[in-house]
């Protein structure tokens, strides 16, 4: 059902876990749909210095979380906002049709975390 790349990423996901000193957190999805993605970021000087995730979901949800967080590590906030679900799917070499929503969730989780950062930034600099 999944290609080797997806299975490899699922078995050995990168950037897993809570981040104590995160200054941006985004959570999307809900348990009743079977998917929750929570992305933590440490952003300094507009650069995503560190990123991690916690995911409740299927193998595809875990693999997309891993790939999406790897894609934005070290990138600027603007670059991270340009990441699309299609890029996440490409990076994984494809996903089964019924699993494409996982990649959408990853894109949304990144945006949610960045928005959290921007909201805090605006609040702090008022």
């Amino acid at each position, binding site marked *: 059902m999944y290609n080797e790349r997806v299975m490899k990423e699922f078995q050995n996901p990168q950037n897993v876990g809570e981040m104590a000193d995160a200054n941006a957190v985004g959570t999307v999805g809900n348990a009743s749909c*079977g998917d929750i993605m929570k992305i933590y970021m440490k952003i300094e000087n507009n650069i995503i210095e560190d990123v991690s995730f916690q995911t409740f979901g299927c193998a595809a949800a875990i693999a997309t979380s891993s790939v999406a967080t790897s894609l934005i590590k070290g990138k600027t906030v603007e670059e991270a906002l340009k990441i699309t679900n299609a890029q996440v799917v490409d990076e994984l070499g494809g996903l089964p049709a019924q699993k494409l929503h996982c990649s959408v969730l990853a894109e949304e989780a990144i945006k949610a975390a960045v928005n959290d950062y921007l909201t805090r930034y605006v609040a702090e600099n008022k």
Partner: protein
Amino acid sequence: MKRIYLDHSATTPVDEEVLQKMLPYFTGKFGNANSMHGFGQEGAYAVDESRRKIASLIGAKPNEIYFTSGGTEADNWAIKGMALKMREKGNHVITSSIEHAAIMSSCAQIAKEYGFEITYLPVDGNGLVRPEDLRAAITDKTVLVSIMLANNEIGTIQPIKELAEIAHEKGIYFHTDAVQAVGSIPVSVTDLGVDLMSFSAHKFYGPKGVGVLYIHGGVKPTKLMTGGHQERTMRGGTTNVPGVVGMAAALEKAVNNLDENYVYIKKLRDKFVERVINEIPYAIYNGDKEKRLPQNANFAFEFIEGESILMSLDLAGIACSSGSACSSGSLEPSHVLLATGLPIEKAHGSIRFSFGRDNTEEEVDYVVDKLKEIVCKLRAMSPLFCEIKGETKNV
């Protein structure tokens, strides 16, 4: 890598002795059982023998056994055939909310295309239908009740005899889907008192592609499969002679060894359940503890999702199945678990393990050890688990 099969409710391997009995009917004795010549008569004789054998093993008469392509066809025939036959009398069918998809979709079809009203009886937290609910649901338009004997996901065994009596008091026909039960627990149509019963060979170490609809003498559902004169003109289509021979041989072996297999498989299952309950926190044992198939164990592992557990077990060589929506491609998780009142997020994290006669205690230990590692690893990734972790150490 060592491979362990714990998905016997999905299908079983064909027993070697059963296969040997089937093989001649693919080659030397290949005749069409409907042909008048010697080749055909060899097949016809084997089918008659098999029909007699199967009938006696379930307490039926030979002319009450109708061979089909499997459990799904038998269920379709029972529901649609009886509904269409009885539509002049009434347009109400009663079933349960935890039936197999073959029953569910047949009921949905007669509702949509023939205007039937369907009552889906609720179940209690263990998956049991309450007889009083059936009694209350019956109207003067009710023509058929169909309740499964044992559930495919949680193994709950229904009080079919009592339910059938309630239907019969009102002169209503009763069908049971016994696909999961036949070969695992004692099943007799006379003891149960049912009018129709579906079962399938590949669930008891027989071949795929062959099943039976038992139809009590005098009951006449409308034909679903029209064609030749097979099955006393009730079901057209060239008889699957090797399949029928295999089904009879497999059922004979299953029934003859039923007590021994029941005790052995139940012992494995009970050991597994005990270890999981004792060693994996936040594991909910779904289904009834007592009124349950010996092979079935179904757990919800809280805070994680079923498909990721299933895939991780598969990578460790362990095959089981999931009530998760993600493994089925739909968005809703198991309708069975939801009907028992299990919250949706817990239904997403449910896994079925179904044991067989070839499993061993060592395999049970290996699976529990792997399962512990996997659940732990996935929980470490879960934002839901993180939220409650403060109060639980060493999980």
